[in-house]
């Protein structure tokens, strides 16, 4: 075995702290094998990719069962309506249709997401609508048929008598519009005023500069490549309904099903096979998944539902539709003195289980200050109900918006004070020597490289000639601009942090189990649930390093509620920190067992035994060595040779519950605008990011690139639109403009490494940063490109039409698309 790579050197307290120091350390690490046998930091190709690229992955729709019925949901054609009657007779007469189920047939089940706060109004989400529908595409009935075609024929034939009502479709009219839920005052589901600093009004009144601005972001679809879907079947051996589902959170889905259907959790088993992306859309429980489980349990027959793209865009979960009204006080040097924010989130018609509709306003109000020092702070966060689909915690969860707010404020203050906007940022960023820093909203930030990442980004793009390129483009008549965004991203929210939200179920910790078999191969079982992040590779790197084996000898078992202890799944950039640390701790216990066996067999002291390169060796005794496979064989098959009282088997459990750790980054982007069409093109993109110790650079880079792409999409392309009646106008990928590779430029990535202080590996979470930083950077760049017009844009997406109307000059004589 020659593939053992490089070792991670956690930065010692006296190590160079400047950005070049860290970058240099990292390059040195990639360059040299120091013989310590660590896989941390190695660009191990993803184990998952072979089967994915060959088309031999196993997604929900690849799982087939004899005699399965296929489901099609009958959905509301109205944004808001009363359901007078449902006639299923014609539908049941269609060839191939076996059953049509309505709410009444299932005893009117519902999901209830709970937040234990007085300011929260709990509302139930019926699995199938009963007397009213609250958004277009809300499920009203389900047709079960022999094939998906007959099921859709049946769904068309269900006759529902509706009385349409006026729909509420935007934040501004919602408070005075009809109630989305009966008795819901002002259509407000959550209204929280947090961190109300009584000095703030004085600060705002007295400050040399007060910036007032409003910001908005459009409703988005998370758009995983695989939509939702599930296959439910009854297993008579265990008296269980077994649900294969495309989910990020198998245990929470199990809890949702059990609670909605009044079942013990033991009678439900959820298995997530390969999952083709989630981005938060699949970290909540869908009505459809519970209905399919209920149907299979009732009929004792397998039932499958695979969401199509139209359903994915109109009937699943959305996110990110927010509005901010902000006042910020600055001194004459650009230092932020105080910040007041009124935050409204259009959360749609229901609270999704289990995170509730408060997830966006809570995140926004708590984390708005971000990477900046805000001495006096107040935030009001509201969740406003509308006749649109409910929202899920889509990648970034309010942080793309709050970073956009803070980054635009820095630019506005700099413009007003005639200062360099990067210098204004430097004066406000939490900096070296101030960590750990506790901010106005009570958050404690572990050490990061906020200033350093900005310095390095500026240096990199200056040396690469971005500014001269921008100026040359402008001289040629092409509007061009450079934008920055600085941000930190809290990741790996542990139980104490999650508990501050006061959800009915508090996620946070996780567990892992590691077992070595008699041939020295390892199985890791985790409660996290990778769905594209490469966990099979990165968890193997972590565990292989601790056990001295090759990552190919380590397999990950995830996504099965009957295999793992209650696990919280994969969301919120938690898995490598919480799940990976759990696996590492379990592996350390197994490694200790292996060392004890080796010490016994080699008659040496346990503390002198090291595990690496597939063998146990002894410090100071060259030649004394046993293969790890031999130790495993001994543990299982020759246990009689071990000292009396030795434990049996080679396995252990580990857990982790860190308080949350902050990654950070600086994004820089160069854009051009076509003066004749207004189309903005992203031309260059740089990410200087710090997610602590990088387990696998390939995986981190992939996450960053995908995230940045989604952030660029939010800034320039994507929006879910509803008309005044609540009809969706973005029901296909012709109208919902997800960018493709043709629209995205190469993304350059530089890593800094400030290790997480709470975990042994030093990794921080990093699943969302790309999406969080990109909208602000792109919006700042667009504003820089339009600086000569005097127009300032504070909304996303910025559409070509917006840009063209800002360009007051005559139509272009130069440039193309």
């Amino acid at each position, binding site marked *: 075995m020659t593939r053992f790579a490089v070792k991670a050197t956690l930065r010692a307290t006296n190590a160079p702290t400047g950005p070049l120091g860290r970058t240099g350390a990292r390059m040195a690490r990639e360059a040299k094998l120091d013989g310590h046998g660590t896989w941390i930091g190695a660009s191990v190709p993803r184990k998952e990719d072979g089967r994915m690229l060959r088309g031999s992955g196993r997604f929900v729709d690849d799982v087939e069962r004899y005699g399965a019925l296929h489901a099609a949901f009958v959905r509301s054609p109205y944004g808001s309506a009363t359901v007078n009657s449902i006639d299923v007779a014609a539908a049941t007469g269609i060839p191939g249709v076996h059953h049509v189920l309505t709410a009444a047939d299932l005893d009117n089940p519902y999901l209830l997401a709970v937040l234990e706060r007085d300011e929260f109004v709990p509302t139930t989400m019926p699995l199938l609508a009963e007397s009213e529908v609250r958004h277009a595409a809300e499920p009203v009935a389900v047709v079960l048929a022999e094939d*998906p*075609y007959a*099921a*859709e*024929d049946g769904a*068309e034939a269900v006759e529902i008598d509706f009385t349409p009502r006026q729909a509420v479709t935007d934040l501004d009219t919602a408070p005075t519009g009809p109630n989305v839920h009966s008795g819901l005052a002002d259509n407000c589901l959550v209204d929280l005023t947090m961190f109300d600093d009584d000095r703030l009004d004085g600060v705002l009144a007295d400050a040399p500069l007060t910036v007032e601005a409003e910001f908005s972001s459009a409703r988005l679809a998370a758009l995983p490549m695989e939509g939702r879907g599930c296959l439910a079947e009854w297993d008579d051996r265990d008296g269980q309904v077994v649900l294969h589902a495309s989910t990020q959170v198998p245990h929470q889905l199990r809890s949702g099903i059990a609670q909605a259907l009044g079942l013990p959790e033991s009678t439900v088993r959820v298995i997530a096979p390969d999952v083709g992306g989630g981005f938060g859309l699949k970290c909540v429980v869908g009505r459809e998944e519970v209905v399919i489980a209920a149907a299979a349990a009732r009929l004792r027959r397998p039932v499958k539902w695979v969401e*199509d*793209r*139209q359903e994915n865009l109109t009937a699943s979960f959305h996110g990110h539709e927010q509005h901010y009204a902000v006042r910020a006080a600055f001194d004459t040097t650009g230092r932020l003195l105080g910040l007041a924010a009124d935050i409204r989130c259009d959360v749609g018609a229901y609270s999704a289980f289990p995170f509730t509709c408060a997830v966006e306003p809570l995140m926004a109000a708590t984390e708005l200050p971000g990477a900046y020092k805000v001495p006096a702070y107040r935030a009001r966060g509201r969740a406003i109900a509308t006749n649109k689909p409910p929202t899920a915690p889509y990648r970034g969860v309010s942080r793309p918006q709050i970073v956009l707010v803070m980054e635009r404020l820095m630019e506005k203050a700099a413009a007003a004070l005639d200062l360099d906007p990067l210098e204004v940022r430097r004066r406000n960023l939490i900096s070296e020597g101030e960590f750990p820093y506790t901010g106005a909203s009570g958050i404690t930030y572990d050490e990061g490289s906020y200033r350093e990442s900005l310095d390095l980004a500026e240096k990199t793009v200056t040396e690469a000639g971005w500014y001269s390129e921008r100026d040359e483009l402008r001289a040629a008549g092409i509007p061009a601009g450079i934008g920055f965004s600085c941000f930190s991203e809290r990741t790996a929210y542990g139980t104490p942090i999650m508990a501050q939200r006061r959800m009915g179920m508090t996620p946070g910790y996780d567990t892992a189990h590691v077992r070595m078999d008699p041939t020295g191969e390892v199985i890791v079982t985790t409660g996290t649930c990778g769905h594209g992040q490469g966990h099979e590779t990165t968890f193997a790197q972590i565990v292989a390093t601790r056990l001295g084996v090759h990552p190919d000898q380590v397999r990950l078992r995830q996504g099965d509620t009957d295999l793992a202890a209650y696990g919280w799944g994969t969301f919120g950039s938690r898995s490598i920190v919480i799940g990976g640390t759990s696996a590492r701790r379990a592996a350390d216990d197994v490694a200790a067992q292996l060392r004890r066996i080796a010490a016994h067999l080699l008659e040496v002291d346990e503390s002198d035994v090291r595990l690496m390169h597939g063998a146990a060796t002894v410090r100071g005794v060259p030649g004394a060595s046993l293969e790890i496979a031999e130790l495993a064989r001994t543990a299982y098959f020759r246990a009689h040779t071990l000292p009396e009282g030795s434990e049996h088997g080679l396995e252990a459990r580990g857990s982790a519950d860190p308080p949350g750790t902050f990654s950070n980054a600086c994004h820089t982007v160069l854009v051009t605008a076509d003066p*004749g*069409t*207004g*189309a903005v093109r992203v031309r260059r993109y740089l990410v200087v990011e710090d997610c602590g110790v990088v387990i696998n650079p390939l995986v981190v880079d992939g996450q960053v690139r995908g995230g940045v792409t989604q952030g660029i999409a939010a800034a*320039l*392309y994507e929006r879910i*639109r509803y008309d005044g009646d609540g009809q969706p*106008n*973005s029901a*296909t990928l*012709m*109208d919902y*403009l997800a*960018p*493709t590779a*043709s*629209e995205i430029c190469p993304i350059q990535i530089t890593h800094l490494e400030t290790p997480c202080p709470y975990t042994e590996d030093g990794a921080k979470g990093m699943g969302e940063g790309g999406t969080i930083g990109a909208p602000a950077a792109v919006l700042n760049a667009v504003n820089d490109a339009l600086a000569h017009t005097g127009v300032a844009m504070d909304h996303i997406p910025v*559409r*070509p*039409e917006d840009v*063209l*109307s800002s360009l007051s000059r005559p*139509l*272009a*004589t130069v440039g*193309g*698309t």
Partner: protein
Amino acid sequence: MKPAAFTYHRAHDVREAVELLTELGDEAKILAGGQSLAPMMNFRLARPSALVDITRVPGLDYLRHDADGLRIGALTTHRAVETAGVPDGFRVLPRAARWVGHYPIRCRGTFGGSIAHGDPTSEWCLLAVLLEAGIVLRGPRGRREVPATEFFHGFFATAAEPDEMIVEIRFPGAAPRAALTEFAQRQGDFAVVAAAVSLTIEDGVCSAARLVLGGVDPQPAVVDADQALVGRSANETTWRAAGELAAESIDPPSDGHGSGAYRKRLAATLVSRAFTEAATS
């Protein structure tokens, strides 16, 4: 997104296809590549009772140049047009092909299918009108040729009878100075606005011009911009003036891809750019 039930018929030659269309009646549709029809069926926006698959009909995949002009067989794929060697006067066709969808779409979609579908932003529909092509149809009453300028009747409606099929598109005259350009936010999307132009320049002066816009009307819109063009110097000022005149003479609709006012500005830009490209081609 599953189509409603339909019957499937495979035609082995044009005659069989026409017989099938005659026999199956008004609700039958020809499948000639399926790049537009199949998605519309999946959305159940189109619900043909029967499909007549002509993709295996031999002899309809060609680009041929003779005394009557350039003939393109109905089953010629967009990709084949893109990569074809065509006589000088017809180079606008392969150049425009890059705007048609994405590579996989160009490899499956067909020229005749696109004309029959009649999307008002379709590159081939615009060029057929621009270059005054003839649409050659075969039906139970024989063969006829309909001028492209009379063929498109509004969104997805054409002069073809339900029992007729397109067999060929004939481009009668060379257009050495012609260009098509368009705008969509994403490469490969249907154009928000498209402009196809053709130009004659004599001694540095524009002596004749023709202009067709897509995305502003339910069918390709022929715009008379002679006033800004004919007799004027062949230069940027003229092209910009033509763009402005075109923008003034249209009243495009608004939708999620852009307001009517934005489409007018796009038209001005694209017409100007198309003439610039045509003048230098």
